[in-house]
């Protein structure tokens, strides 16, 4: 699926001066502005406590901003979001197919009516042979793939990923990074990806939003203008190293300011 160049993409969501405080005085996020456009792969990069998970929860509607606005282009719809957490968060009593069925099921759709979508999503993550398996029979990486399949099965306008690969080993993590990019190329989804890995954020995203802690806020946005598809070779290219340096400098700035 073709994705328009940055700057020409239609808007999906706008955060305007979003602030979130807890108990009146703890500022988790201050004056965050972010425009998410269709086809963007945005990484929220920053140290612990910089409000990246808070930002994600606000977008997900799990809590509401203390000040500021979050507006969906064209208004909110039934199918705005897919979410992937740090843990696979599967229902252990349900099979892989039933887990992927969940978003549809909660909208009242029968299994048979969406079976093709479920199969397609599982095929995209390479698990079409594990329909009837239970989560406990899968490896950590496979569980995460099921979780990703569940997030994208309804083809939502925006997929939120909260450090989805942080708990995986390096080899699995690299493989899932590659697979995620392939997946994105195929279905052209819009992603906000929370991470504290500079390397991961540069490899995956076209926009990196660098955040600082105490109070959580956006410090800078780094544009990664390397073209997709990005392969394993990109990881070892001088261009990648330079981009990592830029993101890393911004992160240092963020940490320095925070300290």
């Amino acid at each position, binding site marked *: 699926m073709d994705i328009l160049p940055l700057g020409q993409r239609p808007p999906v969501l706008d955060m305007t001066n979003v602030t979130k405080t807890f108990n009146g005085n703890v500022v988790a996020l201050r004056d965050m502005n972010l425009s998410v456009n269709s086809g963007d792969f945005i990484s929220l990069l920053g140290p612990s406590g910089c409000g990246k998970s808070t930002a994600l929860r606000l977008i*997900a*509607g*799990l809590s509401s901003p203390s000040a500021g606005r979050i507006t969906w282009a064209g208004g909110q719809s*039934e199918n705005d*979001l897919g*979410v992937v*957490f740090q*843990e696979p*968060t599967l*229902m*252990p*009593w*349900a099979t892989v197919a039933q887990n992927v069925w*969940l*978003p549809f*099921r*909660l*909208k009242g759709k029968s299994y048979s009516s969406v079976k093709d979508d479920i199969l397609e999503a599982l095929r995209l993550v390479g698990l079409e042979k594990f329909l009837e398996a*239970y*989560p*406990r029979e899968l490896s950590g990486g496979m569980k995460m793939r099921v979780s990703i399949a569940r997030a994208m099965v309804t083809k939502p306008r925006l997929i939120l990923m909260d450090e989805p690969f942080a708990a995986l080993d390096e080899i699995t993590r690299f493989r899932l990074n590659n697979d995620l990019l392939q997946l994105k190329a195929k279905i052209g989804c819009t992603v906000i990806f929370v991470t504290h890995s500079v390397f991961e954020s540069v490899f995956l995203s076209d926009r990196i939003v660098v955040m600082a802690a105490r109070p959580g806020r956006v410090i800078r946005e780094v544009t990664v203008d390397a073209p997709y598809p990005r392969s394993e070779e990109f990881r070892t290219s001088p261009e990648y190293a330079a981009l990592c340096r830029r993101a890393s400098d911004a992160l240092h700035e963020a940490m320095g300011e925070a300290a």
Partner: protein
Amino acid sequence: MSIAENQPLYDAEDLKRLRAARFERFGKWLLPVAVLIAMIWLWDRVVVWNEIPHFILPRPGLVLETLIKDWPMLFDALLVTLQITMMALAVAVIGGVGLAVLFTQSRLVEMSFYPYAVIMQVTPVVAIAPLIFIYVDSRTAGLLLCAWLVAFFPVLANTTLGLNSADHNLRDLFRIYGATRWQTLRYLRLPSALPYFLGGLRIAGGLALIGAVVAEYVAGTGGIGSGLAFRILEAGYRLNIPRMFAALILIALTGVIIFAGLSFLSHMLLRKWHESAVKRES
């Protein structure tokens, strides 16, 4: 030394583990049976050596004889006790799960009623039973109420815990997808609570039997339709000690069978996904 390919290689550790596993497999059954046989033999010998009369302590053989001879009467009594136990268990499940669901749906209800559920649980049933039989006319209803009082709390407590232990991220996910209260209960909270509920059910099974037996003691009325506990009382009055033992054995066996049955049910429901029921390799 090189290792030949495709040749299974067991080192000393493996062999030790295999031996331990084999011992575990047989020991689990053989050892209790051996203890049982030894105890029965010892019992028999104690009676013979000390020349104890059978109306004080009968020999095991006499107990078995009585069990067979009195079987029609004891079996009828067993059915009565079993009926009360099962009915109490069923009502405990309905009441316990129903109340637990209500508790988790409304904090107001939980705050209002939970202390009373605890009070009902900690007050010994023997102390309440006489009052129950004063106010409740139907004997069966009285017995049922007593047995239910003891059996329902573990179901309530465990199910409440289970309903509240649903994964937080999954709860968030359900919220994000706009799940209704009913959907969250049906697809998330109830399945999460299942292992906890089944644990409570196993305890409740034993307690329902205890409740039924205790209530029969308190009720103390005999005649047709009386249960095992009354048969024990009655045999006690008549110094028919062998029959007391025979009835006692039946009660104990019933308890074991209820526990085994509920354990089996639990295993069948959880075997595919829950850690407690999944066999581990190694």
